[in-house]
């Protein structure tokens, strides 16, 4: 396993984001919802900026904009004023309220404040209020994302009759992934509730009027009825039980839960389609059989360009697990799998992903920052980096290609249109990786080959 990493106290160039950002993204994927951060103004603005630079889309995140007095005497009055103002101007169907480190530390009892708010201002109706606790000092944006999904499920679902639908809790996918996922489900003849779904709310068309709340998102009525689904499919091997919406639905309503990996690569996509086929009672549609066939054909065509190449993969744990699984399938040797997350389940899941495929077990590290990734990369001699755009400085420093996937992509257009999942996603990934390797060889060659 190589040398033991020094245990640094400081963090340099973190490979994670903070909890309320994940919650904001999840809330943005609900129809008619406005994300609302209970904290100081900066949090909302910074996260908006960060998200905008990836999606190139507006995202209005409201804030209770606490000042010094509120920090001392409590943020309740500002929270209520903020909710009132958002309700008045945005006319939301739902406000998703996430806390921040400030309001968690001063000890605001949000649940009680919302109870009071409903008493004082919502006698004649108003938006649904869903709240989630997201102190940034414990966990990453992924814990915030999952916690918000869980909160939506917990606070909105009501007992319903069986409705034959399927719940899909996909975790943090791209807008293109979500569109593709919904298409797969429809093609399989199923009706699914995908939560969250920001495929339109964070990747919408040009408009005549500014969309305070853009069209799209998971319908609230569908969320309410998730209790009556025939099953829940939840992506992500590292998702802990207490943050799992699927576990809640299973425990509370007896909805069977199928936990899958993020469907990246052949085997994980096969698993998804097998699961969908079980639900629908029909075989995989021909369109996907064909896409799988083309994918395999292309892997054969291009296998020599990628075989034995060494990759450093980093990002959110479940995305890295999916990507590593795919790399193993195409003969790339993942040498380091790194994440800022600390789920505790990363090593085991990577082990399963490469079992029987990769020649060696990669180094796998939770809680890593880019300084540590850089130190290990120098030792592991990779051929390329696979991850979001924040690895660019590192890749540039070593002079290696960075293949951009996941979130954020701040230095290229089209991050929201990157497709990672399904056979089509695997196809795009393969083409990216193979071409990056071909380009690296071509550019460094004195000959300047004009054929591969």
């Amino acid at each position, binding site marked *: 396993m190589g040398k033991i990493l020094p245990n640094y*106290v*400081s*963090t*340099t*160039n*973190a490979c*994670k*984001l*903070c*909890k*309320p950002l994940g919650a904001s993204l999840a809330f943005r994927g609900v129809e008619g919802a406005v994300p609302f951060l209970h904290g*100081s*103004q*900066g*949090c*909302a*603005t*910074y*996260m*908006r*900026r960060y998200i*905008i*630079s990836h999606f*190139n*889309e*507006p995202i*209005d*995140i*409201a*804030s209770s*904009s606490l*000042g*010094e007095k*509120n*920090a001392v005497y409590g943020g309740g009055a500002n*929270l209520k*004023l*903020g*909710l009132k*103002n*958002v309700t*008045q*101007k*945005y006319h939301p169907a739902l406000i998703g309220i996430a806390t921040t*480190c*400030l309001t968690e*530390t001063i000890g605001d009892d949000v649940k009680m404040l919302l109870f009071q708010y409903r008493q004082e201002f919502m006698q004649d109706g108003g938006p649904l209020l869903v709240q989630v606790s997201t*102190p*940034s*000092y*414990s966990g990453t944006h992924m814990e915030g994302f999952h916690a918000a999904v869980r909160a939506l499920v917990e606070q909105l679902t009501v007992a319903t009759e069986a409705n034959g639908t399927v719940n899909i809790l996909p975790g943090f996918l791209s807008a293109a992934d979500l569109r593709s996922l919904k298409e797969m489900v429809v093609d399989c003849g199923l009706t699914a509730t995908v939560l969250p779904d920001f495929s339109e709310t964070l990747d919408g068309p*040009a*408009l*005549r*009027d*500014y*969309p*305070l709340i853009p069209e799209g998102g998971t319908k609230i009525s569908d969320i309410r009825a998730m209790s009556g689904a025939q099953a829940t499919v939840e992506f992500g091997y590292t998702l802990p039980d207490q943050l799992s919406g699927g576990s809640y639905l299973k425990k509370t309503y007896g909805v069977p839960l199928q936990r899958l990996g993020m469907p990246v690569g052949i085997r994980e996509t096969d698993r998804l389609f097998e699961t969908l086929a079980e639900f629908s009672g029909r075989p995989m549609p021909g369109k996907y059989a064909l896409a799988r066939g083309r994918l395999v054909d292309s892997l054969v065509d291009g296998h020599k360009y990628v075989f034995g190449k060494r990759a450093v993969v980093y990002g959110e744990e479940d995305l890295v697990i999916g990507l590593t699984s795919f790399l193993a399938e195409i003969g790339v040797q993942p040498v380091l799998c790194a994440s800022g997350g600390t789920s505790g389940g990363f090593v085991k899941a990577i082990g399963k992903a490469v079992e029987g495929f990769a020649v060696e077990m990669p180094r796998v590290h939770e809680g890593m920052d880019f300084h540590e990734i850089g130190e290990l990369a120098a030792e592991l001699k990779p051929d390329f980096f696979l991850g979001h755009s*924040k690895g660019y*400085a590192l890749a540039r420093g070593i002079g290696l290609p960075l293949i951009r996937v996941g979130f954020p992509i701040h230095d290229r257009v089209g991050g929201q249109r990157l497709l990672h999942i399904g056979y089509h996603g695997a196809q795009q990934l393969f083409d990216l990786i193979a071409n990056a390797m071909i380009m690296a060889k071509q550019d460094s060659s004195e000959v300047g080959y004009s054929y591969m």
Partner: protein
Amino acid sequence: METALQERQDSIHRTGEAPFVMDCNKDSLAGAVSQRACVFCGSRVVLYPIADALHLVHGPIGCAVYTWDIRGALSSGPELHRLSFSTDMQEIDVIFGGEKKLYHALIELIDRHAPKAAFVYSTCIVGIIGDDMQAVCRRVSEEKGIPVLPVQSEGFKGNKREGYKAACNAMRQLVGMGDTSGISRYSLNILGDFNLAGEIWLIREYFTKMGVEVVANITGDGRVGDIQRAHGAALNVVQCSGSTMDLARMMEEDYSIPSLRVSYFGVEDMAESLYAVAAFFKDEEMMRRTRELVKEELSLIMPELMRYRQALAGKRAAIYVGGAFKAFSLVKAFRTIGMQVVMVGSQTGTPEDYAELAEITDPGTIIVDDSNPLELSAFLKEKEVDIFVGGVKERPIAYKLGVAFCDHNHERKEMLAGFAGMLNFAREVYGSVMSPVWRFVPRREN
């Protein structure tokens, strides 16, 4: 305006509609989706470009990670400022205090990077749990023999302006530490340019040509050593109304260094700024050189600038920027290329700033403080704006509605200051306004 919230009505005015009293410079309204960030942000952006200092954010990870390499802030040498350092506070640190972690993180990072100084930024949570940052900084400073400066930038302690002040307070401690021997009597410090795309290099070149020595860049392409000897300069030239004016005031108090407010955006303001500096030194020869410089620079850009003017004449522009001072210059710069400013606003303007904006804008121009997407999108529509100038958060508002956009903030890659910068600005505006893509957007459909 009906779109805006009741409490926001007094922060929106139209030129010519008396009485003009702007409600501004206060905490943002809860739930209004302000475009502003926080105190920490104010400090971070001001100190950020000091390239040989360590910038350690003491707090949970978010504050550090969202400001990692956030603006150009080019450096001609070290690039330590482009790394994002954090104590990444965890629950246990919140409960038991983060001082120990801060101490060890500082020692570790100073040993690793050998910076010339360290700035330690306080975040919301640190203000609440009461870590004694001063004490930790003092201890590390003694042990490591470099200045280690606490920046009291708890996010909730006011708006961005408070952050500017906290940054200036930290820099005040650096000024005066260095040796000032050999500094010319024709010398100045450049305050309030952050060298986002190389503008400070151009400005320095102008001053050098005039025969003025630049002692310290505060803070674009900044160095700790230069700031430490900044008190040896004869003059402070201050751009950007809010961010470094406090430091200029402090230096006037501590060292009797006078200051001039300048702006490098637009040909008018650029020329005026250089003339003001030459006039300050009361040197005829310098004034002559300055006139020559301005004449030569203008002759280089005017032909191309006039071509853009022809194409852009009569088009309407909207401005929403961080500091009002930039807005003044932009109003004039648009005039230079024949465009009309129909809306102008800022995050941090003062009543005086807005009164001045009302002076220099045409009747009917919307003037706004601490605006938000709801209002800004309504203004863009009402005024049928052709181009919107702002930062990253304003960009999707413009683009979603099919309006051209010019980034005059963190993400610009072209230098927009100086005479050459005016040409770049015109090119940027032209390149967005004249794009054929607008023909396909809904607002252009019948």
